[in-house]
């Protein structure tokens, strides 16, 4: 489902990722860890084509990302839900509208969208904050809005970049349960995190990034 072959990504002449190769099976759940600045976010951004690799090969489902045309990018992204490290919520839209966006972009009719938003907000425990603006929420609550927006479209691939960075252990566990539920429905889930507690005893594969190289 996610396949990297000798992927190289430079920033300002410095390699952020150097010859990275790995392969996630369809429906697998795995973790990506490594110190700050090791390239976790960069690797995830390559997957949803927010960045383009200098060389190597990246295959996501049937898409060969280094050969992808601009017109296909939206359709790739609709199949890749992303929990962004920096949230990327629309500040002038309510929680409900932010979560609904994923569906509106995919052309889901408004009634169906409304129902799915309600149940997804319930899933992340934010039903009562539907009409709040992101600025009126705590960091952990905003995080959960982002998660709701990422999972609502039932993407084939779910990427999460430090999804529990702002959460207490109790809420972190609840969030991990959401990811497990999405995984149980067949999605390929890839979570970047510093927090070993998330993947210890999870039974999932863990990839480690260090100075741009990867090991598992």
């Amino acid at each position, binding site marked *: 489902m996610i396949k990297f072959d000798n992927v190289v990504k430079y920033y300002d002449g410095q390699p952020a990722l150097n010859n990275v190769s790995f392969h996630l099976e369809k429906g697998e759940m795995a973790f990506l860890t490594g110190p700050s600045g090791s390239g976790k976010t960069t690797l995830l951004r390559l997957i*949803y084509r*927010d960045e383009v690799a200098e060389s190597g090969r990246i295959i996501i489902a049937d898409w060969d990302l280094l050969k992808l045309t601009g017109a296909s*990018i*939206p*359709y*790739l*992204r*609709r199949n890749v839900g*992303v929990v*962004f490290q920096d949230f*990327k*919520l*629309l500040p*002038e839209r309510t929680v409900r509208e932010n979560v609904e*966006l*994923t569906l*509106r*972009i*995919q*052309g889901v*009719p*408004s009634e169906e969208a409304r129902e799915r938003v309600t149940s997804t907000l319930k899933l992340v425990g934010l039903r009562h904050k539907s009409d709040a603006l992101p600025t009126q929420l705590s960091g952990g609550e905003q995080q959960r809005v982002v998660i709701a*927006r990422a999972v609502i479209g039932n993407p084939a691939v779910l990427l999460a970049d430090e999804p529990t960075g702002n959460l207490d252990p109790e809420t972190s566990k609840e969030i991990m349960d959401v990811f497990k539920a999405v995984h149980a429905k067949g999605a390929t889930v890839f979570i970047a995190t510093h927090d070993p507690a998330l993947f210890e005893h999870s039974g999932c594969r863990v990839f480690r990034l260090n100075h741009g190289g990867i090991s598992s």
Partner: protein
Amino acid sequence: MRILSFHIRTALSNMFRNIGINLLTIFSISVGLFLIAITTVTVNTLNSAVSEWTEGFGLVVYLMDSLDDESIKALKAEVENEPEVKDARFISRETAMSRLKKVLGEATLDGLDENPLPNSLEISLRQGNVQPEKVREVAARLKRLEGVEGVQFGEKWVGVLANAARRFTLFGSALGISLTVGIIFILSNTIKVLFYRRSNEIKILKLLGATSWFIRIPFLVEGVLFGSAAGLLASGASYGAAYWLGSGHALPPNLVWPTHAVILFGGALGIIGSLLAVGRIRL
């Protein structure tokens, strides 16, 4: 349809976010549209007046005395075959004389024992063929026909009138085109500003899988809203102006039509302006 209503809601909420400056934009566009509307009405009115005045006007073809009835009939048919000619009416020399007598008075012509007037054909031209060059060209062609003695036409005053109308139309068109270009410019700049103000939001929409058109459509809707709102304002103003000029009387239809067309025209300019603003931006 549903997805469009989503875009319209987006567009409306964006418009209301900066209602003050947006109203100012709408107002200045409406001034331009108002000027276009009244220019159009004035030019149209003038042109239809001119073509009405010149409608009855035509050429007079004088026939040789030697022609018999058969040949006159044939010649009349030949003349009516010309594409610019609407119809040709035969005026016998007797009719011509009695007309002349009516104009000048019986007594003046009493001294004549012989009718000096020739038979003639009065020709009226189809609309749009009264420009001086055209008339001259038709006259020359008719003159070459067998049995034609001469052709006479009131080239001068028709020419002056038609020329004036044409100059005015030209001036009106130039004014209309420059105003249109100006309005498109204002609209496309307004939309561009809205676009850049939302660039952060647009980046996020792209990451969520929005296509370029999904992002552009709210701006096109906004362009149409701006343009047609200004059109509505301008149409109200031109209706008011026409009513005032007519001092309260019912308006002739050629004064009323622009009030509807102006709204559509404004909306069309809105689409053009916003397409110029966001149609080619690489997303």
